[in-house]
């Protein structure tokens, strides 16, 4: 093992542990919603477990994995050590301490506020302080990535960053812009309020700040997956990247469009005028564009791979692809599930259509296709590729690795199909069970909650395979000389000099200007209003 790889490996270890725990909780939730009376089933356990699942998956697994992957990308593409290794390690320990604090509060039943932690539900202060530390730790990663790039740029003036690093730089900048919202919510509103230093809190101000953060959070998860799709996947498929400059364009579009859209999570909220919601809806629609471009570019890259292997017909290139390679099949299924999830996302963003699906089971079906498949399945797939290369060991339990993506695909198809339908039928999300005292309307959801539970079992089996393969490889994999990480070559040579798409400072300014257009006036108007605060409640 290379010394420099210890830091990404430490991050991956935390990510995989969080993923394993959260997966077990997810299965119990799917069974509970189908009204199966399992031992230890109670409202207290259920909502504790939903909180733990959401926080461990959406905030801990993703953040640690992305940070670990980011360090691999920046050190390997630039072939140089981190500019600030002390800062990077400090960030890791701060984030881990925060995670332990928040997890302790959740598992002891004092923070069942779900991962959205809307006040005036009030968690133990350790939960909010833990969240703050996790964010501060991740800032150390953003800073390290940017500083390492700048050190390299000084020695290579005018040379564009490799595409993988371009994607991770955008992710790091996006994360700094996004976390401003949640940091203010946490440090200014939630922590003083949970400590009793302030008596009341304005729930709508907290919601606005949370969703300022909550949507770019989605792209913080997704962009590293896109980095895998653009820069590792084409090579794994046996081909080349169809277009490097379009990849650069896609990441820049996400940088400027991800944040000024938060109100599309708040269409059903009082206190926000309709016109601002409409503006956010209009901006949201354009986030579809970079994903449409990605769908073409990556599919074309797969076709290039199939043709290099001798395919000549319209579709036979699909059969030439390495479907038995778990990295390939994971990413291929991740993209397929994301295509469906993306179309659902356009519906959610459609201003008035949203009222039919808001806070129904449709929403959990939607984001299990996006973050739960496009992101999580890609991260699992790339783990099969990266871990052996970082550890200098062979991938163990190869059969489990090979079936894992297929189990995830089947499980997620069942889970998301059934929850999309029950959502359209009006079943709310985040409920322990949905029987409503034997209501005949609620009884119509019953069969599909069973289908969802079966999907949950498949997903748990898949998650179990992944964790076992990781454990087996890490602890007992046969040692061998580490293989290099090979980045996909583009079909056409990359521009030798930087272009407009490599001007990160400029695009950051553009992003901030659009954020100000979307948020400055409604936030200012909100602060002018006479509002009444709420004390904390702990009904869990």
């Amino acid at each position, binding site marked *: 093992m290379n010394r420099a790889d210890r830091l990404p490996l430490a991050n991956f270890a935390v990510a995989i542990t969080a993923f394993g725990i959260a997966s077990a909780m997810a299965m119990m939730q799917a069974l509970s919603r189908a009204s199966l009376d399992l031992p230890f089933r109670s409202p207290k356990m259920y*909502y504790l477990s*939903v909180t733990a699942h959401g926080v461990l998956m959406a905030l801990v697994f993703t953040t640690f994995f992305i940070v670990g992957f980011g360090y691999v990308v920046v050190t390997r593409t630039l072939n140089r050590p981190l500019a600030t290794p002390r800062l990077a390690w400090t960030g890791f320990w701060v984030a881990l301490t925060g995670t332990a604090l928040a997890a302790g509060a959740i598992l002891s039943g004092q923070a*069942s506020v*779900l991962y959205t932690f*809307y006040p*005036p*539900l009030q968690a133990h202060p350790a939960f909010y302080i833990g969240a703050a530390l996790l964010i501060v730790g991740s800032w150390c990663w953003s800073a390290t990535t940017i500083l390492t790039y700048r050190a390299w740029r000084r020695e290579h003036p005018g040379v564009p960053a490799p595409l993988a690093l371009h994607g991770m730089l955008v992710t790091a900048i996006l994360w700094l812009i996004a976390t401003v919202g949640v940091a203010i919510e946490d440090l200014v509103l939630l922590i003083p309020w949970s400590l009793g230093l302030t008596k009341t809190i304005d*729930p*709508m101000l907290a919601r606005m700040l949370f969703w300022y953060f909550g949507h770019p959070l989605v792209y913080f998860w997704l962009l590293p997956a896109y980095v895998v799709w653009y820069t590792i996947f084409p090579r794994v498929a046996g081909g080349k990247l*169809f*277009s490097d*400059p*379009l990849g650069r*364009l896609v990441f820049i579009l996400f940088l400027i469009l991800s944040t000024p859209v938060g109100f599309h999570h708040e*269409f*059903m*909220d*009082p*206190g*926000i*005028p*309709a016109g601002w*919601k*409409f503006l956010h*809806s*209009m901006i949201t*629609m*354009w986030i*579809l*564009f970079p994903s*449409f*471009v990605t769908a*073409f570019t990556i599919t*074309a890259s797969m076709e290039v791979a199939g043709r290099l292997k001798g395919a000549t017909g319209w579709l036979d290139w699909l059969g030439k692809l390495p479907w038995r390679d778990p990295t390939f099949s994971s990413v291929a299924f991740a993209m397929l599930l994301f295509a469906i999830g993306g179309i659902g996302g356009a519906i959610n963003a*459609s*201003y*008035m259509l*949203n*009222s*039919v699906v808001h*806070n*129904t089971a449709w929403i959990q079906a939607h984001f299990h296709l996006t973050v739960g498949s496009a992101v999580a399945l890609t991260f699992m797939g790339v783990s099969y590729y990266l871990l052996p290369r970082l550890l200098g060991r062979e991938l163990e339990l190869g059969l489990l690795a090979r079936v894992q993506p297929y189990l995830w695909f089947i499980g997620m198809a069942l889970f998301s199909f059934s929850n999309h339908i029950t959502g359209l*039928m*009006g079943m*709310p999300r*985040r*409920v*322990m*069970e949905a029987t*409503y*005292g034997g209501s005949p*309307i*609620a009884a119509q959801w019953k069969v599909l909650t069973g289908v969802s539970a079966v999907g949950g079992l498949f997903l748990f089996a898949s998650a179990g395979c992944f964790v076992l393969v990781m454990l087996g490889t890490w602890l007992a994999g046969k040692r061998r000389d580490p293989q290099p990480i090979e980045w996909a070559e583009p079909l056409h040579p990359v521009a030798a000099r930087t272009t407009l798409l490599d001007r990160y400072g400029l695009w950051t300014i553009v992003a901030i200007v659009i954020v100000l257009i979307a948020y400055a006036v409604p936030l200012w108007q909100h602060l002018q209003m*006479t*509002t*009444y605060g*709420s004390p904390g*409640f702990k*009904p*869990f």
Partner: protein
Amino acid sequence: MNVPLYEKIWMWAAAVIIVVFALSVAVGYGASALQPPSHVETIDPAKVFGDPRFAQRGVTMTAGGATVVAVAMMFTFQPAEVRVPAGKPVTFRLTSIDVTHGFEIVGTNGNTMVVPGYVSQFTTRFAPGEYLIVCNEYCGGGHHLMSAKLIAEATP
């Protein structure tokens, strides 16, 4: 930037699809019937029952339809059953005395967050029949039990 022809066609098609989506939303925005609940009005959550706006809860018939005034609390709605005229515009006015709740009339586009300190308001119509109302925002250990009933009665 050198973009291959097929990808150019694809990108233009994607842009057209997005414009169509955006236009359909814009048309709905222009036609005032299709607005999400975006009412801006505040209230002291500690004094809801004493506030004249929420002192009387229940259904009031108006010239064209009806107004429903209701309060959400852990883990029930007050009133827990309302009767409204079918086919006529019914305006809902809601607030919460404790945490954030949801108010969803299953099978309709009646759906709003109910946030303490704020008054939610929206208007919709119903076909005759019985409807289940559920809380669709997590509000604590009894969240899955929080429901109410709406009966839309055909009127002559």
